[in-house]
Every structure is written in structure tokens, then in C-alpha cells.
């Protein structure tokens, strides 16, 4: 069942078309990744799901209801740009934000007690937020996002600025929330996290979705068309290959995407002539590869369309 249904939403800022006819669904209880380069429309779309801004046309349904003050209470939102009141006490601040999400004073206190304890932050409640370290502030921010026990958690770049230990703690909590049946939607451009955690993804480019579906389906549809090659010797032979696209190239390693008109045997033969092979593997493309090639295709296509029209 889809807990979030987005149907043909459009959002303009003056002449700038920030979100152009975007549709996708998020299944209840899934971990959904929103990918795309900066400025592709991810944050604007997330803000519309949060009812922070309202689409010019199209609809956002949360649990079959139009997004509005009611749906806001079901969502916990961690914006990419973090921030809380610097000069307000941590405890008061968390209570204030939980109350704004519609919790009663008593429920809010109980829930905050649990999460503060969980993050080892009980002792900070009497301090001003500004007196905490960056990492401590991040924890408080995260608690403020989930304290009202939201059914949907939206995290915009949740791991940015976290040290490895807190990063791992956060990952554990996200997985745990998901196991409890919460729907997680997170926006990122860090592909390895998406590959590790997400069930479904959608890929934004220039205000539109250019790819959406389950991660495994998408990977399968791209087929086994990538060669990972390790070698010793002069890498200039890579430049002589036709009908390929080369990713992650370094002095003695490359990922080669095979396009129409070439197969892996031809690549291998050319390589053996020039260098000593240490690794040769025929694999599914990485999400990084899918991401880059799809975005590039789409940008080229749009550019051509613009020229024609």
C-alpha cells in the first residue's frame, strides 16, 4: 500500500520551473531513496510532502488524505540545513517542537525521556543548544525529528556532517524505526548508502523524475553490461576503446560500461595486448553508474529538445 502518493505535481518560482510534473509512490514500511544532483528539485518536492509549500498543480496524498496540517503530524522531517534555537535550553526546545507536532505535554516528556536516554543526552537538557558540540547538536536535532513517533520519517542528507560513530548510530536507529513499520524517505547523493539501505528509489534531474522503481528491478533492467578491470601498465589503451563509457578511472583500475557495438570479449582482447590484467569482472552496473549515465542521457535529451523547440 502506498503511504505517500504524488501525482503530477508542478512547482514554479517565477520563471523557474523547480518541479515539473513529478509523480511517484512510496510504499508503507519501505525505505525510499530520493536521489539527484543539487538543484534537481528534491528539496522542493520534500517540502511539498511536508506541506511547507503547496504545489501549483497536482496532488500530494498522505495516507489517502491531501497533505495538510493533519498530515504534518504524521511526518518527522530532518531538513538538509540543520538548525535549532541556539539560545534556548535543549529540554525546553525539544518539548516545544514536540508540542508543535501536536503531542500533549505528558506524552512529549515521556517520549523525549526515552530518546534522550537512548542517545546519551539526558545531561544536556538544561544546557543551551549553542553550548553543545556540533555532533551533540546533530543528535538533538535527530531526536526532535522522531520524538513525536511519526509514521513517516523524512531525512534530507541525514549523514552529512556526522562522524563515523554517530553515522553508524543513526543508521542503526533508522533501520530500527523501519523494522517498527515506519516509512523512511531519504534524500541523498551518497550512492553507497542508498545501495545498502533503500528498497525503492526515484531519481531527479532538472525538476523531473527520470527513473523510479525498486532498486533491484532497476539494477536488473540495466543488465550485465559493465566490466571492472584492474591492470598494470600504460592505461592509454582505455582511450582507444570505442562504444564505451568509462567510470571510476584511476591509474590501474576502471569501470567500463559497454554500449551498443562492443562486447566484453573485445575489450578483454584489446586490454591483454597492452597491459597485464590483474582483475577482470563482468557485473551489474553500480548505482553510481546508473545515476551518472541516466542523468547525462536526460540532460542531453532535454538540451536537444530545447534546441528543437
Amino acid at each position: 500500500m502506498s503511504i505517500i502518493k504524488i501525482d503530477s505535481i508542478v512547482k514554479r518560482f517565477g520563471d523557474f520551473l523547480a518541479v515539473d510534473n513529478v509523480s511517484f509512490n512510496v510504499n508503507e514500511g519501505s525505505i525510499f531513496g530520493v536521489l539527484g544532483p543539487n538543484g534537481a528539485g528534491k528539496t522542493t518536492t520534500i517540502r511539498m510532502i511536508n506541506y511547507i509549500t503547496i504545489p501549483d498543480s497536482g496532488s500530494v496524498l498522505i495516507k489517502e488524505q491531501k497533505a495538510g496540517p493533519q498530515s504534518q503530524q504524521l511526518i518527522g522531517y530532518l531538513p538538509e540545513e540543520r538548525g535549532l534555537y541556539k539560545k534556548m535550553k535543549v529540554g525546553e526546545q525539544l518539548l516545544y517542537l514536540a508540542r508543535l507536532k501536536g503531542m500533549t505535554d505528558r506524552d512529549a516528556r515521556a517520549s523525549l525521556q526515552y530518546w534522550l536516554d537512548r542517545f546519551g543526552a539526558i545531561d544536556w537538557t538544561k544546557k543551551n543548544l549553542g553550548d553543545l558540540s556540533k555532533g551533540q547538536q546533530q543528535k538533538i536535532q535527530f531526536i526532535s525529528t522522531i520524538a513525536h513517533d511519526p509514521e513517516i520519517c523524512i531525512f534530507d542528507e541525514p549523514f552529512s556532517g556526522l562522524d563515523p560513530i554517530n553515522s553508524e548510530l543513526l543508521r542503526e536507529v533508522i533501520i530500527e524505526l523501519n523494522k517498527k513499520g515506519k516509512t523512511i524517505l531519504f534524500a541523498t547523493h551518497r550512492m553507497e548508502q542508498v545501495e545498502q539501505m533503500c528498497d525503492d528509489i526515484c531519481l531527479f534531474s532538472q525538476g523531473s523524475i527520470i527513473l523510479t522503481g525498486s532498486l533491484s528491478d532497476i539494477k536488473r533492467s540495466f543488465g550485465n553490461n559493465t566490466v571492472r578491470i584492474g591492470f598494470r601498465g600504460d592505461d592509454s589503451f582505455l582511450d582507444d576503446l570505442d562504444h564505451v563509457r568509462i567510470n571510476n578511472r584511476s591509474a590501474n583500475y576502471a569501470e567500463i560500461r559497454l554500449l551498443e557495438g562492443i562486447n566484453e570479449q573485445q575489450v578483454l582482447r584489446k586490454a591483454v595486448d597492452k597491459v597485464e590484467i590483474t582483475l577482470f569482472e563482468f557485473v551489474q552496473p553500480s548505482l553510481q553508474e546508473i545515476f551518472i549515465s541516466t542523468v547525462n542521457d536526460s540532460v542531453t535529451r532535454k538540451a536537444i529538445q530545447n534546441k528543437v523547440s
Partner: protein
Amino acid sequence: MHFNKFAIIFKREYLSRVTSKAYIITTLLAPLIFLSFFLIPIAVILLSPDTQRVVVVADETGTIAPRMAEMNPELFLIADETQSIDSIRERVMQGEIQGYVVITEDIITGDRSPELIYGGTGGIGFITEIQGALRTSIRNEKLDRAEVPDEVRSIMTERVSLTTRVLTETGDEEQDAGMLVFLGIGLGMVMYTSMFIYGGIVMRGVIEEKTSRIVEVIVSSVRPFELLTGKVMGVGALAITQFVFWALAITGISALSAPILLYFFGSNASAAGGGADTQEALRAAEAELPFTMPEISLGLMVGFIVFFLLGYLMYSALFAAVGSALESETENQQLSIIVSLPIIIPIFFLSPVSTDPDSTLAVTLSLIPLFSPIIMPVRMAIMNVPFWEIGLAIVLMILTFIGLMWLSSRIYRVGILMYGKSASLKELIKWARYS
């Protein structure tokens, strides 16, 4: 609008500020400054050294000196006949006494003026006192010589004081406009400062939430409009709290300080009132002051609060819109200046408006919504402004506020989420047009 959420925001905006050190200090300090206006003159008098001055009166006629000595035995000393004028001069030069006056018969007849020879210290008060004593003594001597009956003397000492009252259209008699001009200008200045102070608090609040980025978390729970109104109302309540506290404190201080003032300045008056009845004594003391203390009527106080609130609402809407466009307080002064201009302009008209509060200029200015909060209370303090003018001004301000709030919330909801750089006026206009 979601009232519950508005209430939570209102509460935070109000409580977080009302408990801040800066607010408590300024709230307490202002009445103390007011108090010091009363206490400093008193302190100056108490602390000034009370040196006893002595003036020798060498009276050839023997009629004036005893009268003077009777009026102020410490100041006036009758020269005994054995003393020569030269020896008295010597004593003045040595500083033993402060001066001397020689009285001769032709002074009493009025053919010559008396002369005070003195050491040069003592100031105007010293000389005035001697002059007064001489005048009274010589006059009384002349009256005695002419054998003037007591009834005539009492007529001569009678004092006629003039109270002025203004007759209004409705037939009520009002107090004089002289001091009211000062009161009016004072109110105008207070209003002007208040607009900047409280409008500034709203603007800084908006900027703080925007630069700290917490605003995005908050508007994922409430509508931007609810946040904006909660903030504006919370700061408005803060202002009202401060005004009420000040009004009570100043009333209290005035009540307490009146008897103190009376004690020091109104010695004659309290003697007249018998010292028992303070109210009467106070009135008598007031009569001795060269001006009448202006009374601030309840109507004027209510008017001030109403015009303050409406003015504050209009300007805080504008300041909030500007705040939402800025990345920090110091950036883009251009926008702040545009919003500040309508507050500053009326200040230039305070003087013409207060001297002629009924002129076409004054009436027109007081009806322009953004000028009303400053100009109208000035007029109200000085004259009886027709009720329809006050009513019209209030209606126009309410309409302007609704319009400004609509415009400002459109700018605000876009501005608070625009990170990176401060926006220009052109961009603000563009934002207001977004759907």
C-alpha cells in the same frame, strides 16, 4: 488558523523574551531613570553646602535694619553705631562677612537706590533675597509713615493667580495647551522609539530563525502564517507588559515623590495647608510652580495604547517581511531604510503639528495610516480631536494592517526558505507574486 499551535508559539515568543536579562534590565531601568529626574534635584539641594551668609546693614535711620533682621536674623546683622563703614569694608575684604548695605533717609524717600557691596559670591539667589527684604522693609516703613490702615495693606499683599482653561465645542473646560505641546511631542517621540524597538525585535526574531535554519523545522509543523502571527502577537504582548509596568511604576513613583518634593520645594505652601492635608498642600505647591503639571487623561492613555498597538502591528508586518529577506541583520540596509522611512518622516512634522494641531496638514498626516500612530497621539494630547477623525484613522490603520499582513506573509513564507544571500527589493516583489 490552528489556535492551539498559535498559542504554543505565542507563549514561547512571549516567555522566552520576558524572562531574558536584557528585557528585565531595561524594564526596571526606565522607571529608575524617570525617578532620577525627581531625585537628582533633591540630591543636589541636600548635598550643596549650606554656608551661612551674613550681610551687615548699616542703617542711619534705624528703621529699616530691624525690619530686615526680623525677617532673616541669620542673614542680616544690624551694624552697631561704633563701627565705621571702613571697618565693615575691611571685614568683607577679609571674608568674615559677605556684604553690607548702607541705608540713608533718601533711600526711604525713594530719591536714591540702595547699594549692596559684597564679596562677589552667593549668586542670584543671595542677591534676590536681599533685594526682596529691602523692598518689603522699605515699603512697610513707608506704609507706616503714611499711617495706612490694615485693610489697605492686606489688599496690597493679596496675590492674584491666573489659571487658564480651554473651552471646547462640547462646553467642557480643559486644561491649558502650553505644557500639553511638550506632552504631545514627548508621546510622539516615545511612539517613534517604540516602533523601532519592537519592530526591530520582530525582525531580529525572524532573522534568527532563518539563519539558524530552525524555521524549516517549525514550518513542517505549523503554517508560516501561524508562526508569523504568533511571533508578532507575542512581541506585542511583551510591549504591553512593559508599558503597563512602566505606567504603574511611574504612577507609584509620582505618588511617592510628591510629598518629598513638597517637603523641599513647597515649604510655604505646606505651611499654608497646615501640613496635615497633603492633597491641599500639593495643590498649593503646584500653584507655586511656574507651570501647571499636565494631566494625562485616561482617554489619552487608552488612545496611546490603541495607536501603539495598531502602529506596531503594521510596522512589525513590514519588519518581518524584511527580516525574512535578510541573511543577517547588518546586510541590505536599503530594505531596512525603506521600512524605517514612514516612521522617521512624521518626526519632522512633530513641531508644526503640535503648534497647530487642527491645521489641514496635521489632520491629513494623522489620517495617513503609517503616520497615524505617531501624529494622532500628538494631536490627541494637545487638543480634542473630533471623534470621527480618530475612528477613521483607526479603521484605515486596521485595513492597512490587513493589507500589509497579507503582503508580508506572502513574502515571508518564501523568504524564510531562501538560503544563501540576502534578497533585494526587486526579489521581494517577485516573491509576493508567487502563487
